[in-house]
């Protein structure tokens, strides 16, 4: 890869902006006023055979390094990701918009020719122009604040719709569970649930741990301690081992403190 890339860069006839193999670099600035520009690295979206991608082949432009002030008009993501296609719009009440950083974009054109036109762009592109100003700084924060003031009615409506659907779903599930209650499946097994006539232990890890703990305690209560001579000997030895371990730990601590010169009183 590296070798090929080098070759490609060296061969470049025009004094073009360096770009990685397969990508075109398009300079982009916020507005006329800026001197330096960032570079968008773009290529036609394509995937290896066999990989699934929801983005339409040929018509999609893949753009890297989109600056944080570009926030609108195309589908933006934090990381390149093939599978994600635009999902149904998420609730703005429950999933607030994240603060944008540098992003990647998938731009879907109507025709494949759009992609090639985009690839040939020389730039520099301007994000904010006089005819299409883009808000930043104080302007942006004030308008963001205004947008964040919630509309309680809209929220109520959304909650109600969701809960209606949810309640319906739960009701259906319950009905189904009730139907299956006590009915053996094709191999003859009957599913036991908490709702049945005789509720059983919930199938949770915590519950099973509790049972095990109770068993263990019951067993240990029956055991005799320090009864046989060997038990006595062993517990003494255990005590000695504990002391030895503690001693080793202490020695290590002292060694550390000595290394930090912590024993000089003043």
């Amino acid at each position, binding site marked *: 890869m*590296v070798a090929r*890339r*080098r070759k490609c*860069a*060296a061969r470049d006839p025009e004094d073009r902006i*360096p*770009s990685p193999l397969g990508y075109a670099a398009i300079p982009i600035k916020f*507005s006329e006023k*800026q*001197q*330096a520009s*960032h*570079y968008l690295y773009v290529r036609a979206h394509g995937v290896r055979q066999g990989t699934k991608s929801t983005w339409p082949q040929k018509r999609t432009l893949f753009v*890297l390094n989109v600056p*944080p002030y570009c926030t609108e008009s195309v589908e933006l993501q934090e*990381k*390149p990701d093939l599978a994600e296609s635009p999902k149904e719009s998420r609730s703005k*009440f*429950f999933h607030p918009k994240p*603060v944008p*950083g*540098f992003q990647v974009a998938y731009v879907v054109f109507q025709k494949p020719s759009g992609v090639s036109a985009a690839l040939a762009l020389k730039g520099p592109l301007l994000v904010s122009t006089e005819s299409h100003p883009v808000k*930043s*700084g*104080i*302007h942006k*924060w004030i308008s*963001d*604040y*205004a947008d964040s*003031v*919630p509309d*309680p009615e809209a*929220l109520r409506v959304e909650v109600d719709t*969701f*809960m209606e659907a*949810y309640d319906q779903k739960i009701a259906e599930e319950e009905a189904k569970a009730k139907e299956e209650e006590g009915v053996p499946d094709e191999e003859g097994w009957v599913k036991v649930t908490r709702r049945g006539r005789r509720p059983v232990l*919930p*199938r949770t890890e915590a519950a*099973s741990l509790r049972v095990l703990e109770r068993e263990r305690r019951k067993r240990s209560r029956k055991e005799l301690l320090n009864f046989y001579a060997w038990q006595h000997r062993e517990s003494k*030895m255990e005590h*000695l081992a504990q*002391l*030895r*371990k*503690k001693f*080793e730990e*202490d020695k290590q*601590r*002292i*060694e*550390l*403190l000595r*290394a*930090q*010169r912590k*024993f*000089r*009183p*003043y």
Partner: protein
Amino acid sequence: MGPAPAGEQLRGATGEPEVMEPALEGTGKEGKKASSRKRTLAEPPAKGLLQPVKLSRAELYKEPTNEELNRLRETEILFHSSLLRLQVEELLKEVRLSEKKKDRIDAFLREVNQRVVRVPSVPETEEILQDKDGLNQRYFRKRALYLAHLAHHLAQDPLFGSVCFSYTNGCHLKPSLLLRPRGKDERLVTVRLHPCPPPDFFRPCRLLPTKNNVRSAWYRGQSPAGDGSPEPPTPRYNTWVLQDTVLESHLQLLSTILSSAQGLKDGVALLKVWLRQRELDKGQGGFTGFLVSMLVVFLVSTRKIHTTMSGYQVLRSVLQFLATTDLTVNGISLCLSSDPSLPALADFHQAFSVVFLDSSGHLNLCADVTASTYHQGWSLLWLQVQHEARLSMMLLDSRADDGFHLLLMTPKPMIRAFDHVLHLRPLSRLQAACHRLKLWPELQDNGGDYVSAALGPLTTLLEQGLGARLNLLAHSRPPVPEWDISQDPPKHKDSGTLTLGLLLRPEGLTSVLELGPEADQPEAAKFRQFWGSRSELRRFQDGAIREAVVWEAASMSQKRLIPHQVVTHLLALHADIPETCVHYVGGPLDALIQGLKETSSTGEEALVAAVRCYDDLSRLLWGLEGLPLTVSAVQGAHPVLRYTEVFPPTPVRPAFSFYETLRERSSLLPRLDKPCPAYVEPMTVVCHLEGSGQWPQDAEAVQRVRAAFQLRLAELLTQQHGLQCRATATHTDVLKDGFVFRIRVAYQREPQILKEVQSPEGMISLRDTAASLRLERDTRQLPLLTSALHGLQQQHPAFSGVARLAKRWVRAQLLGEGFADESLDLVAAALFLHPEPFTPPSSPQVGFLRFLFLVSTFDWKNNPLFVNLNNELTVEEQVEIRSGFLAARAQLPVMVIVTPQDRKNSVWTQDGPSAQILQQLVVLAAEALPMLEKQLMDPRGPGDIRTVFRPPLDIYDVLIRLSPRHIPRHRQAVDSPAASFCRGLLSQPGPSSLMLVLGYDPPQLYLTQLREAFGDLALFFYDQHGGEVIGVLWKPTSFQPQPFKASSTKGRMVMSRGGELVMVPNVEAILEDFAVLGEGLVQTVEARSERWTV
């Protein structure tokens, strides 16, 4: 102190502190060499980190040898634990004199001896001294002459590198000669020559404490007032003479007893370290090492210490004795003789407050410890020694893990140990004070040393006046420096400053009233006389008419400074010391946590007002009618509600013309053409609703139900109580009496729902997820912490000030973002819950100094910081937590704080600080502490106290300067601007029909954007309290050229580097982005270093 008399007893001097101090530096160097050698041999703990111990089974369970068993048994009997034993052994190794040095010192002493004997024309002492030389300082003057003669001759000898004078124990009548060898041993040893009279030259009966040996006629040129009244006794003067006569016998006694057992010697060494860490042996009339050695001898003679004891046990026994025996009531004596001609203990008690007689029965060893002679019988120093001994015993009994360090290795300088200090300067004022207090007999006794004469009466005066406000008063006088033999000795007024330390009693600080006796009682006159013009007749509610003094103090901070008023008033009234000579250091740091316009309060009152408003709100919530589920708990979860918000909120009322209005949602919006409106941060309150079968068991659905509750809460609060509310899906903001609260509805089981994971077999297990941990932290742990710290504030009124000063400092250093608010609050709490070896701070000043000390010295790598709230963790649990900590160290945050509610995870430090930020804080604290302490101890006044709060800016690569117009908290800046902008508030608070602009802080919004966009490339530092500058540090690792990767192009560009295509940060464009993203807020972007050029 080491009495090493001239003559042939030179051998005994080796064990004395003068010799040991310089020697210590020598041994230290050797120690370094030894340990570095050891470090290369034995494998050291990796990077100074403790590792869990791994011992093989065979090693753990092998048969013990006899030797091992003996050592184990010995450790158990003689020491608390093996750790303590090892620690003590290490310390002794550091302070003990090596054999090699001992030999060099002995050789030097022999040389000195030869030379002293050979000094030409030294007459025999019998020829110089005459009968009656004990009178009128005649002996002392001859002694000084003799010494000058010796000095003259010895100074010419090439053996000595320096020959100079100093005072013995600060007594200006008794100079001694200091001799140091020439060459490389100059710092190794100092020999002190004390001329002594022959042991039986003075008759002891002439030097009893009741006798006079300085005649008034001689001293004052007149006979004592009136006719026939007796000459005043001169107990102090007599003691000084006696000290010289018994010096030799004391030395012999010490060497016989102490050399009998190593344990005793070790014990004395430990005790000397203990004294020195507490500065008890410092300056004139200190509790010297000699005194404590004699105490050991006494305890040996009374069989409280026996020779088989370890050094640690000797230390413990002496501390135990000091803590429980009051030598001011029952003096002790080393004298075994029952000779009836000997003076009685009672005679001594009359002259001295602290009595410890030597073996001759004539000399009080503790005479110098008593500040005043027979005027008032008490001793500051003795009280302080007892106080320290009691604290130390408590520490030892608590079996704290780091007891050794707190006891012997932690210094307790006055400024860090006492809540307030005051300097009296210039000392020449005390001369006038002596006359005003009529202390002529004391002056006569002290040979004109007016500082010593005045000390006792002055401190008694203050102690009486401060009364219940005071726990302990201590004084410190800098030692008189040694001087060259060709110069004049220093004068009393040159001996610097007299510094007093006040340990306050918080319960006594709240009262502004000194209640006197009823007007018709005879004591009333005494009260009036004591308080002078401040005493007034007052009629009280119960009808009594009493004398009383009322101090002006409205706020907590002013009440804390009432001792200042008391001290200046009493000193001016009774001792003619004007206010200009009293430099009281108690509140200079208060300015840093004072509100914007308030100068008389440090915010405690404002916090109480906010908490009271919260209490009202919580009552409203409890009583709300029409909620489908009842409220089961209302808990505060905001720094204001635990008294640790640096700048507490004040009730606000907006000026509508300043804002845009959004009528249909009854809200105010910021306006483009106006400066940024005032910053209002809602105070979070968690409102738990009862559990019920109606709650759905699905995370998404719970969110919706909660949103419905938030809406309903807003509705009901508006309907039933007329409060302005605004609901969102996660919280409801409520405007009440000018304060804004953010109520978050919580459902107890929600974290559990978020944790549930179903395995393929249908088993439901609980796994922590980021969301569940966050929810648990916000709705369970945060309210618990808030209520615990709220409780702490009720016990320790200074907590709020300390926590806020600490937080203010960290933020002022631009490091605030690295530390969760709660983590710093907990560090501050630790200062109160674990104050050892100090007592809990009672002033923000001392608390802040200890915060800096803790931060700069704590070994975060190897220790968790325990904050044992409500004392819930037992010693055993702490041991267990500690070993768990070591085992899991690598997975834990760099800073680990353990509380009873949070034993393993250290939730408040999970998100930071990073190791670098913590290191930076440690470095800054280590720089700030000595600087601030020096400022506060400067008797000419602390100067600019804000110096340590100003951050160093030269370390940053880029500085982004912000426009004050859009910094809503601009006025909170460390250097508060003379003028700032109007922030759209009316001066009179009142109800508002529109919701305020909440949490709108452009610098914070800007920072969030910067971190999101450039967090990979740079770190951003800012002081949220009115900072005008953002410091940017590039991350060096991100500036390494990298090969192209589609996933990490953020803000980078492709460059051809040596024919290779690499990615580097596009710095030029990024710098312009800084300006673009902060349009309107950013004034300039200064790139300051060239480090980023790639």
